[in-house]
């Protein structure tokens, strides 16, 4: 088996050593949050069924509420202080921890635990919505002139730390970028502008998009506030080619005259030292979404198609919307290029159903543009994609293509729906393979006997384990399942794929690395 896969890889003209070419420097893979690993050359449709657990590492990270580890970032060919270079997985933990792990061996290179005086304000203990600590996935910079890769990490005291990826040493003084225990989401670095979003008003933090220019010695903090519920897209904001950061807004009202943009998607750009809302999309049924707590909370994926820069997003209602980044929602801001029918959540439930997290998109060799979404809960009985794989009760991944019609309009065309997954999480595409996982998390927030009871200990107690899947990107056919190999679950985390390895972290602070047997 081992030699077989090695032979297959070599037959492709590659060696594992030479195959170093892929990185994953930010949550979602790039600023557009495409969740597409374009540079994967090792794992493919033919060999992915041979995935094995290459290593796992127990980290000393302490979970806060239900959060633990975030998707690791991958940098290849990092020059090390003692000489040589390594491929490094940069792993962030909620307990204000950063770990640098050698990918080849799964051994810890360095770690850093940030300490600070306990902030005066924090979320309620037991509340899964407002954990304390580092809640944002860090981001890696490109190499600077001296070859240093910087890590930007936002700790629970609201400060940005700038570290040398090679050794974890500070390379710049920390600066404030938010509010202590304010629940920031994944950092996004675009042309020296660092973005994040915040939600749930945790510890009094405003719900808004935040930006800071790293070149600004004053580090002026800029913000765009939609006066809505939380901006809790899993991967924060996605940034288009013009520098507009797009982020979904949680439950709230739509009052354009008062610049209130609840239950929508706002786009904000840094201009003259300010972060200004430039455009927005509000679903025409926003009142319904608000009433049922079906808020827009899905980080969009941005892509080029037929000369336009488009994006897809979704909501707990369980529809996907296709939007033009240059004119989101049209003249009335409420008309998407296309909107799918309901794919799930017939019950219109605010919990354990609908689309959660983020989208994914990739372009096939034939030019076909694919977009993917995960969803939780049973498939809607009236949603019948042309290809599916048995009953979907707990969740699935749906793949669609973007179609340009003769009349100049665009459509989202469902292509396949995956097998049932225990709450499918945002997919990631690499070399013709879709990776996703059922998170195994208990996501129930309300009970028949107790009413609303969203309590971390209760949910932790009833969570099971995550299961990693690999699917054929063009058909959705299952190519691999980790079965019960992963022993714990995760919450608001994600996958990373680079250079033949698939990474997933779990609540018990174990980082798993899957790959082909014999891989170095």
């Amino acid at each position, binding site marked *: 088996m081992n030699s077989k896969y090695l032979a297959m890889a070599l037959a492709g003209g590659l060696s594992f050593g030479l195959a170093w070419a892929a990185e994953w420097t930010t949550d979602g893979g790039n600023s557009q949050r495409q969740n597409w690993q374009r540079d994967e050359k090792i794992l493919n449709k033919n060999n992915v069924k041979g995935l094995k657990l290459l290593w796992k590492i127990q980290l000393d990270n302490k979970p806060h509420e239900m959060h633990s580890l975030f998707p690791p970032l991958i940098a290849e060919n990092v020059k090390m202080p003692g000489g040589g270079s390594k491929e490094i997985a940069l792993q962030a933990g909620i307990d204000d921890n950063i770990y640098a792990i050698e990918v080849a061996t799964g051994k810890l290179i360095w770690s850093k635990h940030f300490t600070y005086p306990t902030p005066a304000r924090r979320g*309620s*203990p*037991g*509340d899964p919505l407002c954990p304390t600590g580092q809640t944002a996935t860090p981001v890696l910079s490109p190499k600077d002139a001296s070859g240093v890769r910087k890590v930007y990490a936002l700790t629970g005291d*609201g400060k940005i730390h700038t570290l040398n990826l090679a050794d974890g040493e500070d390379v710049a003084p920390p*600066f*404030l*970028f*938010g*509010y202590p225990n304010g629940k920031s989401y994944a950092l996004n670095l675009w042309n020296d502008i660092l973005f994040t979003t915040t939600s*749930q*008003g945790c510890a*009094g*933090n*405003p*719900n808004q998009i935040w930006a800071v220019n790293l070149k600004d010695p004053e580090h*002026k*903090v800029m*913000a765009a*506030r939609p*006066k*809505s*519920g*939380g901006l809790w897209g899993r991967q924060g904001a996605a940034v288009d080619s013009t520098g507009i950061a797009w982020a979904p807004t*949680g*439950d*709230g*009202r739509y009052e354009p005259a008062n610049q*209130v943009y*609840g239950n929508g998607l706002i786009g904000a750009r840094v201009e003259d030292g300010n972060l200004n809302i430039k455009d927005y999309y509000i679903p*025409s*049924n926003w*009142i*319904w979404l*608000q*009433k*049922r*707590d079906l808020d827009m909370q899905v980080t969009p994926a941005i892509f080029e198609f037929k000369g336009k820069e488009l994006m897809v997003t979704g909501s707990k209602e369980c529809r996907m919307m296709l939007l033009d980044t240059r004119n989101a929602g049209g003249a009335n801001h409420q008309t998407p290029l296309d909107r799918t029918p309901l794919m799930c959540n017939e*019950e*219109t*439930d*605010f*919990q354990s*159903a609908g689309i959660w997290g983020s989208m994914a998109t990739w372009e096939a060799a034939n030019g076909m543009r694919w977009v993917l979404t995960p969803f939780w809960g049973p498939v809607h009985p009236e949603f019948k994609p042309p290809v599916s794989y048995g009953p979907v009760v707990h969740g699935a991944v749906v793949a669609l293509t973007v179609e340009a019609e003769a009349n100049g309009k665009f459509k989202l065309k469902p292509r396949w729906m995956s097998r049932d997954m225990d709450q499918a999480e945002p997919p990631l595409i690499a070399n013709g393979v879709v990776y996703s996982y059922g998170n195994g998390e208990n996501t*129930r927030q*309300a*009970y*028949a*006997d*107790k*009413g*609303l*009871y*969203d*309590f971390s200990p209760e949910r932790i107690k009833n969570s099971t384990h995550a299961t990693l899947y690999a699917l054929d990107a063009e058909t959705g056919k299952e190519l691999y399942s980790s079965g019960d190999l992963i022993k714990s679950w995760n919450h608001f985390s994600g996958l990373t794929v680079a250079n033949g390895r698939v990474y997933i972290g779990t609540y018990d602070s174990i980082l798993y690395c899957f790959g082909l047997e014999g891989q170095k």
Partner: protein
Amino acid sequence: MRAVWLLLAGVPIAGVAMLSAQGRPLDWPFFGGDAQRTNWQKNDLRITKENVHELQLVLKRKLDNAGAGPRSATPPVVIGNLISYKGFKELGFVTGAPDSMWSLDLDLDRVFWHKKFAGSVKASGACAVAATAFPSLTPPNNFTTRPRPAVAGSAPAEVPRGLMAPKGVYSQKPVFAVSSDGRLHVLNTSTGEDLVTPVPFLPAGSKASSLAIVDGHVYTTTSAACGGTAGVWAIDLSRIDPANPAGAPPVLSYKAAVGGLAFGTDNTIYAQTGDGELLALGHKDLVVKAKASGLGAVATPSVFQFQNRDVIVASGAKGAVTLLDSNGLKVLAQSATVTSGRGVWGGFATWADTDGARWILAPVWGAPKSGVMAFEVEDQGGKPVLTQRWMREMSAPQIPLVTSGIAFALSAGEYASEDAKGSGRATLFALDGATGKELYSTAKQVSAPANWNGLTVANGRVYFATIDNTLWAFGIFLER
């Protein structure tokens, strides 16, 4: 650093706090909307005089109900937003004779649960088709802020006693109903399950009126026509021990033939008797505190505040509307008699317009004409005076209700008498509360006569039931 703190100034803490009055979900927890039986939805801005012409049929639900006749099913009491185990729901609770209860997802026109009470008492004639009492909720039921589980060291929240004590940290408040065997059912709003063993409350077979929950007590009235005992009944919920269902608490009663109940702002109970009296009863002992006689008719009173005191609206003979001072039940004002017919039918609606003027609506079944009469209560030297402003004629008018200055009036169809089978069709009218001008009518959209238990309004929808066990709602379209 300074820039960050500047940004934080004046920021609301949670998205939920962004809800304006227009978006806040509203309850209709009782018959009449509140304990004062005002039939006035004070805070619903969804229906306005400007958009009421856009009303459309938004719900039509045929109930699988064996009952028949003009009280076979009730309009709903409404929880504007229940965070149920299946999500955020606007639920309506409807009872139907005999011994059925439905919880409906009012947005989706789906049955959320259906309950069939055990132990039905067989009755005959009018009693066999009499609806069980209007159910009742415990206001407020609405979600206003996201509750957090309590943690060690935090201040304990107020914990209701006995039956009202929550099972969990944030248990939902129950819905109450009475079955034909006279038992009080305390039901989980999410599932319809009995939260405690049904509690003996009324004589079996009683024809009970609407329930009301006030100050931790459940109240209703019964007529002598069915269970044989007419009276006012009360039970203290704090005396019901879920852990000891056999230890049924004492039931308070006051034996008299009365109509429906209204409650003062001090919880005093007001009821009209068949002997033409208005009674004032203590709400914890049902002892008569005061009475007025010579009114000559029966209706469910309404209560409103006038010059910082409660004023009771009661029915007088031949359609006269009577105002009484809660202090001693002295008559303050009375309108002229208007009919030789039945007079005021069922009860009243009362509201204050945006200028603070107090209005009263009275449905009158009479001869030579029936309809809804509107009176303005004018302050003349500190004394209220009733001035009739308008009347809208219609057949078999039911108790109207008011929201956003709009009077909704329901013509039930054609009824020769209470025992007669209705004919024709129900028609819902929206009238300008100040002038009586018609703003909307359902015209011929409803296919059956209406039941005699009035209207419900909540969150942009107006509900009523028809004799064919169909629940109707006309409202503002909500895109889903």
